[in-house]
């Protein structure tokens, strides 16, 4: 699949297709990232990495529910100093842009980690300000426009690569937060991270996740994510990367019509393996051809025009 129609420019990155691997999905090692890219992903995002190593939470960290997964993995990562090795290895084998997902417990930390990631070769930074299950990073930052703006400004001041800001749906008005991020310099918005959720086992009467609460992903959240993208598109002028429940090419097209310039795929990789990218990319291409669009860019935001 190497069609002109599918190419997109995303905040300065050139993507062969409007699909990306979502953060936290297989995102540690060069080989798995390469595997995903070879299946057609236009870019890959690493697991979120912080300043220091973190082991994450005890298992269970993932629980299966009606139409998705709830996870509270707890941001396990080797810390940026160790992770630069993985970034370098990945860069050596990848033919598509590598986006490093970064989290921190302060604006300063976000900045340092982002700097090191870019030094190691990351083509862009995605700020995870939306992890619903780790205190004092993620959502705590992504729910507060002022704190968020400070983080974005610091990172933008330190790196010369595009900075994406990944937002949480666990807010009253996501477009307000998106606007704050863009005003502070964000080059693109990724929407959405998981939705705060939990599952309780009725036999043992216990929450199943060791962290009790986690984040819901998968088909269950797709209609929420599409709405978030649609809302954000009305408010900001930077590209939006849709994420949440993409499981088919139809889902990807729906996100793009809502205003996404590209989509990220996470949970669906569990279902279909990395080849999900191949089928989504092919499906989008066939759709464009059938509908007579010359470029995937033409369908971005089309649902707003009707």
């Amino acid at each position: 699949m190497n069609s002109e129609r599918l190419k997109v420019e995303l905040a300065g990155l050139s993507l062969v297709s409007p699909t990306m691997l979502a953060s936290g999905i297989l995102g540690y090692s060069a080989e798995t990232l390469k595997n995903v890219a070879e299946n057609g992903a236009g870019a890959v995002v690493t697991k979120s990495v912080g300043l220091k190593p973190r082991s994450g939470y005890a298992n269970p960290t993932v629980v299966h529910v009606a139409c998705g997964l709830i996870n509270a993995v707890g941001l396990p990562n080797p810390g940026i100093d160790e992770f630069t090795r993985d970034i370098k290895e990945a860069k050596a084998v990848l033919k598509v842009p590598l986006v490093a997902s970064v989290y921190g417990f302060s604006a300063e930390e976000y900045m340092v980690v982002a700097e090191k990631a870019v030094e190691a070769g990351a083509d862009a930074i995605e700020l995870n300000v939306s992890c619903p299950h780790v205190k004092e990073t993620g959502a705590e930052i992504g729910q507060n426009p002022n704190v968020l703006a400070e983080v974005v400004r610091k990172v933008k001041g330190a790196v010369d690569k595009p900075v994406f800001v990944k937002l949480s749906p666990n807010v009253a008005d996501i477009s307000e937060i998106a606007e704050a991020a863009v005003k502070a310099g964000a080059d693109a918005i990724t929407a959405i991270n998981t939705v705060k959720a939990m599952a309780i086992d009725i036999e043992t009467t216990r929450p199943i996740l060791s962290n009790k609460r986690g984040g819901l992903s998968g088909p269950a959240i797709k209609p929420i994510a599409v709405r978030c993208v649609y809302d954000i598109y009305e408010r900001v002028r930077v590209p939006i990367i849709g994420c949440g429940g993409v499981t088919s090419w139809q889902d990807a097209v729906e996100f793009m019509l809502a205003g996404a310039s590209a989509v990220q795929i996470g949970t669906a990789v569990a279902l279909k393996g990395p080849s999900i990218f191949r089928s989504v990319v092919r499906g989008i291409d066939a759709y464009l051809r059938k509908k007579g669009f010359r470029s995937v860019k033409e369908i971005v935001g089309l649902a707003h025009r009707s």
Partner: protein
Amino acid sequence: MSAWLIAANKHRATRILDAEVISPTVKTFTFKDKLCAKAKPGQFLMLWIPGVDEIPLSIYDVNREKGLISVAVKRVGEATKALHDMKTGDWIGVRGPFGNGFTFKGGKALLVGGGVGIAPLTFLAKELAVQKISRTVVVVGAKTGKELIFLDKLKRLCGEKNVLAATEDGSYGVKGLASTLTESVMTKEKFDAVYTCGPEPMTRVVLDCAERFGVYAEASLERIMRCAIGICGSCTIGGYRVCRDGPIFNINQLKSVKNEFGVWKRDFNGRRIPI
């Protein structure tokens, strides 16, 4: 949406129906679970010890008619200790079966198990016995005789003389490593397939050996398991996900990851640690 279904991954609560002491450090636990009772040898499940942890365990035995399933668990840390302390009637959670399982080849099979790694091989031996394979030889290894498990069962399944043991202290069988014993077995006889599970240094030696003898071989690997469905990335070796593409890998796959296999793996935080 109906596409969204990994039925095996749904959490099921079930009760321990039986717990048996097998050795000073190993216990077996039996419980009901329809889905896991359909598993193939080499597949594993995720067992939730409420309030403690959820850990991957190979399936050691199934009773397909009754929907029963057993695991053999070695006490090594917090979770396995907590599980060892559980009794009949206690609730646990199960999801699975996961992974691919061993591939059946015809002819003569050699099974090499180290420690509790013999568990999935015992399940394999049972299925091979049913398949009326011409001959199954088992090599089991442990530090000491007391830790050799499932010997009687294996002898019943494969024939007394086809079960060979090696202990590091020589308290049972030959003195030395299971891998060394394997090498001498393979020198004497030509097998059609070798299956191994146990400490990675051991399985690596067994695989190298199989390669030298030009024999098809498979090894069961262990990596940190979280999701068990191939998305979290904590279990990768090279481009493979052990939970999904494994845990059983064949000799060619393992050759393609020879810089990692038996060399290093990722820790809970994703750092590389030597094996």
